[in-house]
């Protein structure tokens, strides 16, 4: 068993890993930036060391400092969490060189899956389906692309090789309109990235983002723990995840699981990992990428399987065989996770910073909260806006939704704005309840205002509340004036009174 694990991360995932270690009797080492001295992972760990200033590149991304601390304090393993250094093969390599176990896959597996073209080529060789297209086929001329297009089939997408963020992207419905669209895509790509190269990709309509969780040990055992439905996204950020997916039945699950295991074996994978797929309406699925690390949304899988994925990661890293065989993996009930972000759903999801003054967690049966914040903690602009994950379990999907509703209603966070109202609106949406949504749902067919319109309005109650609060404030101000009349020396109150009535 490891004696001491350094957790090279912050926030809720650092707390999550510390909990697993503590329950295994392993000492934990936290690292923190200057902005995180009061963070929960520092408070909960057995040891804590300062990394550097708040910006991640001066603290959580400083592999050299992390390893120096790990050496100095005698840690025998490093858990990278997700983000930061979790998918950096050079860091995994450096850990190995420093005789420290990296709780993750081999550097070669990270590298193989980290390069998109290489990953695609690797899994294609292993017989894993990918979204048909010309990516990885080199830069092609318009003539070559036009010749290839009918083989891919319409509708398809033109995408910029150097691209991202939709720049240089065009949706093509037929061969006729393609030459013009190719020209405009190349122009936009050229002006945006200084590189006019494009490739073609089949447009998967009504696509869902479904991913398979796998576990692989050093003895060659690879199992899958079912899928997660992650289609609810905004700007490619997942907002809500479910296990299992309402769109996947036993047969499809088995098919996707087998393919996922094949993909993992293709890179000689060891550790927990996730294969992301696009799933279309006709149950065709295509490999997107592999995340060679623990995922944010791992708890929904834990809730329906009863398997502690972090503890299994540690077990695998120690060279032990998995605790479960494939046939022992059973699915019980349904789990939903809402990512609670410090952002304003009524103002274009603008991030919100500030000190959390109050936080009341939902608790009770079937509710789990993974968080790294608490009342008194300051949300800074340096890191991810995700401040908590609210996870519920129910015997059925319908019960999980009802439970999530009551948990969201109970959750109070004061001091920063959060997207809780977004999730509440989503839970009331008929499309969500029916499980009928794809990756474009949030951005194209969901609005806080419209979705809210179906809800019972509490306008009159809101009016009473606002009036009472405003009235009390006015009365307080009046009292302040009265007090000031007795003690005119207290200039501060006068000043405030004046400011309020300007």
């Amino acid at each position: 068993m490891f004696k001491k694990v350094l957790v090279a991360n912050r926030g809720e995932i650092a707390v999550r890993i510390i909990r697993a270690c503590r329950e295994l009797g392993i000492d934990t080492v936290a690292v923190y930036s200057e902005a995180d001295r009061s963070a929960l992972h520092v408070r909960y760990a057995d040891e804590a060391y300062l990394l550097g200033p708040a910006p991640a590149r001066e603290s959580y991304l400083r592999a050299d400092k992390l390893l120096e601390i790990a050496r100095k304090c005698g840690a025998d393993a490093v858990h990278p969490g997700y983000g930061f250094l979790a998918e950096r093969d050079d860091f995994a390599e450096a850990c190995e060189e420093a005789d420290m176990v990296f709780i993750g896959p081999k550097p070669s597996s990270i590298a193989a899956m980290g390069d998109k073209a290489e990953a695609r080529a690797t899994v294609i060789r292993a017989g894993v389906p990918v979204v048909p297209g010309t990516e990885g086929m080199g830069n092609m001329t318009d003539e070559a692309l036009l010749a290839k297009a009918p083989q891919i089939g319409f509708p398809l997408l033109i995408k910029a090789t150097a691209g991202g963020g939709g720049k240089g992207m065009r949706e093509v419905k037929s061969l006729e309109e393609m030459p013009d669209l190719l020209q405009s895509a190349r122009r936009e790509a050229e002006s945006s990235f200084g590189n006019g190269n494009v490739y073609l990709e089949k447009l998967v309509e009504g696509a869902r983002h479904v991913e398979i969780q796998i576990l692989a040990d050093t003895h060659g055992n690879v199992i899958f723990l079912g899928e997660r439905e992650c289609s609810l996204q905004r700007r490619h950020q997942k907002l809500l995840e479910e296990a299992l997916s309402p769109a996947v039945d036993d047969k499809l699950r088995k098919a996707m699981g087998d393919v996922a295991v094949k993909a993992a074996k293709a890179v000689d994978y060891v550790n927990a990992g996730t294969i992301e797929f696009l799933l279309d309406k006709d149950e065709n699925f295509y490999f997107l990428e592999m995340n060679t690390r623990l995922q944010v949304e791992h708890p929904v899988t834990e809730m329906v399987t009863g398997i502690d994925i972090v503890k299994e990661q540690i077990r695998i890293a120690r060279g032990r065989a998995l605790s479960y065989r494939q046939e022992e993996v059973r699915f019980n009930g349904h789990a939903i996770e809402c990512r609670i972000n410090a952002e304003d759903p009524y103002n274009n999801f603008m991030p919100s910073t500030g000190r959390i003054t109050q936080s009341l967690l939902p608790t009770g049966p079937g509710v789990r909260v993974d968080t790294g914040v608490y009342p008194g903690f300051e949300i800074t602009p340096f890191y991810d806006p995700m401040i908590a994950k609210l996870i519920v379990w129910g015997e059925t999907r319908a019960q999980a939704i009802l439970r999530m509703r009551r948990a969201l209603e109970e959750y109070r966070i004061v001091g920063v704005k959060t997207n809780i109202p977004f999730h509440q609106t989503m839970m009331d949406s008929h499309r969500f309840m029916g499980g009928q949504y794809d990756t474009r749902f949030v951005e194209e067919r969901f609005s806080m205002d419209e979705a809210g319109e179906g809800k019972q309005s509490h306008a009159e109650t809101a009016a009473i509340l606002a009036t009472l609060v405003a009235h009390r404030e006015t009365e307080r101000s009046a009292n302040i004036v009265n007090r000031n009349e007795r003690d005119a020396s207290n200039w501060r109150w006068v000043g405030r009174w004046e400011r309020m009535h300007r």
Partner: protein
Amino acid sequence: MRYITTVEGKQFLVEIIDEKHVNVDGRVYEVDFESVSGQPVYSLIVDGRSHEGYAARGEEDWQVLLRGRLYPITVEDEREKRLRSAAGGGVAETGEFHLRAPMPGLVVAIPVEEGQAVKRGQVLLILESMKMQNELKSPRDGTVERVRIKAGETVEQKQALLSVT
């Protein structure tokens, strides 16, 4: 004390009778109202119905968050209201708009320039914070003036960025 309270375009005439009673449009309600733990969160019982809402002053109105929905609300006492109607109202549409940084961050891009005419809703500036790019938009039509920052600069919360006149 009588107030005119407007929610979603609907006006309510709310009279605070005493500590425990309000009259809304002629109907008297029994109310029990208190702040929770000294926070801007209020437990409000109206004729036995228990509610809990967040209420805070916004820029120009009250923001009430109740049962997963946000209500922007104006509360005016009758006298104020009368004065304002006499004066003719409508302040927000005129005067200068000063764009301030809603949070500390890095200015990624300023897709407008001084003297440029902009429409309501047009993006004035892209600010990166918490790993997200956030578009700051113009609240009204006008002309961009006094751009005080450049792309690539980091800014503090509330720092003045540019104006729309």
